[in-house]
């Protein structure tokens, strides 16, 4: 653990619980609790009648430095939000020439050309890594991801259908899911090439194929292992794992990025 992160942990330990406004701090039935009534985040992952894990809940990818239960963006965004190639010592070695050229252009612009910076959507797989929570609702045949960012949604079909062979591109793509033991495996294609993989200029083509493996470790924690396969943009598939934390007794709120954007006319590159 770096010294910097130890600060976060101290801050979290001291942070008071907050529960303002009508949506937050309302006890959710079915939440396991400790003797003092607080949500027991270490309790086992819940299961549905069919024996499969229930992934439902309000989740957010963990910030660098750790979690603060129910506080969005508790620290700097996780490293994969910023950079899906964070684990590579020489990331340029797996970027195809056009991908690298676009990346270098974005570096010069201080990433002001990021879709997010212009209130465009967070596409897949960036939607998983945002510092805005999402609410997962699991039903037979369909899993719904309700993203706070732009108050939008993604549907994951678990009714046995296949991915489309020639999809119409969209920001979040088309997703189908199946169970592999206790892990939900979701495959996505049809993501528009206007979307970025992260906030730092790593682009992709419309040949992108994403695999997400959702594993609820316990009541309060989920791991999402993501594999990116896009040979026209990257010379080989690569993977990274997001840690997501449950916001107990909480909910997603309304968030429309385009409400009153005041930054875009002030962006300056290097």
């Amino acid at each position: 653990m770096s010294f910097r992160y130890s600060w976060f942990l101290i801050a979290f330990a001291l942070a008071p619980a907050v529960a303002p406004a009508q949506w937050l701090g309302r006890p959710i039935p079915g939440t396991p609790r400790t003797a003092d009534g607080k949500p027991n985040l270490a309790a086992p992952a819940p299961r549905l009648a069919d024996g499969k894990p229930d992934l439902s809940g309000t989740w957010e990818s963990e910030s660098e430095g750790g979690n603060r239960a129910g506080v969005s963006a508790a620290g700097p965004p996780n490293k994969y939000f910023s950079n899906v190639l964070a684990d590579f010592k020489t990331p340029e070695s797996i970027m195809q020439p056009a991908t690298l050229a676009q990346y270098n252009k974005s570096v010069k612009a201080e990433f002001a050309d990021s879709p997010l910076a212009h209130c465009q959507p967070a596409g897949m797989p960036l939607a998983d890594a945002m510092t805005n929570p999402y609410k997962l609702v699991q039903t037979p045949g369909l899993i719904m991801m309700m993203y706070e960012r732009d108050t939008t949604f993604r549907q994951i079909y678990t009714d046995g259908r296949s991915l489309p062979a020639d999809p119409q591109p969209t920001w979040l793509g088309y997703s189908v899911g199946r169970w592999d033991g206790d892990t939900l495996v979701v495959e996505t294609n049809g993501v528009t090439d206007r979307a970025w993989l992260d906030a730092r200029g790593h682009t992709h083509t419309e040949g992108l194929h994403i695999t997400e493996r959702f594993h609820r470790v316990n009541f309060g924690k989920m791991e999402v292992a993501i594999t990116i396969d896009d040979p026209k943009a990257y010379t080989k598939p690569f993977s990274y794992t997001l840690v997501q934390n449950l916001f107990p007794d909480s909910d997603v709120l309304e968030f429309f990025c385009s409400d009153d954007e005041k930054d875009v006319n002030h962006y300056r590159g290097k």
Partner: protein
Amino acid sequence: MKNKLIAGTAALAGLTLLMQPARLDAHHAFAAEFDEKKPVKFEDAVVTKVALINPHSWIYVDVKNADGKTENWAIEAGSPNVLLRRGITKDTIKVGDRIVVDGYQSKDGSRRANGRDMRLPNGTQLFLGTSGDAAPNEVQRPGIDTKN
């Protein structure tokens, strides 16, 4: 003891400034708009408007410049939802409040700053959760960014 604690906290806060992680938030990169070499601090700022609006909240303040003339500055803070989950509601900061606030000025020289800390008239310290992003705004310091 208390002085030692304060000195230690200040030194460590300074150290965290030197150890800045990537400056990105869920909207724009810090460096796309603001300049870490232009820190600003207003010791006696009067709140003229509070806009809890996406993607960033903005707090407008009147301050006296070096010539004694009043200038209006716009201070950028985290999104309303980021602030709400930190306990900052529509009732927390009010027009007319005299506050202390610091941050980093816009690269284009306009009277805009990426806010970091704010102290309310009753002494409450608020961490502006600016942009939900990284340092120099987002590194929290015990006793400064938290109430305890």
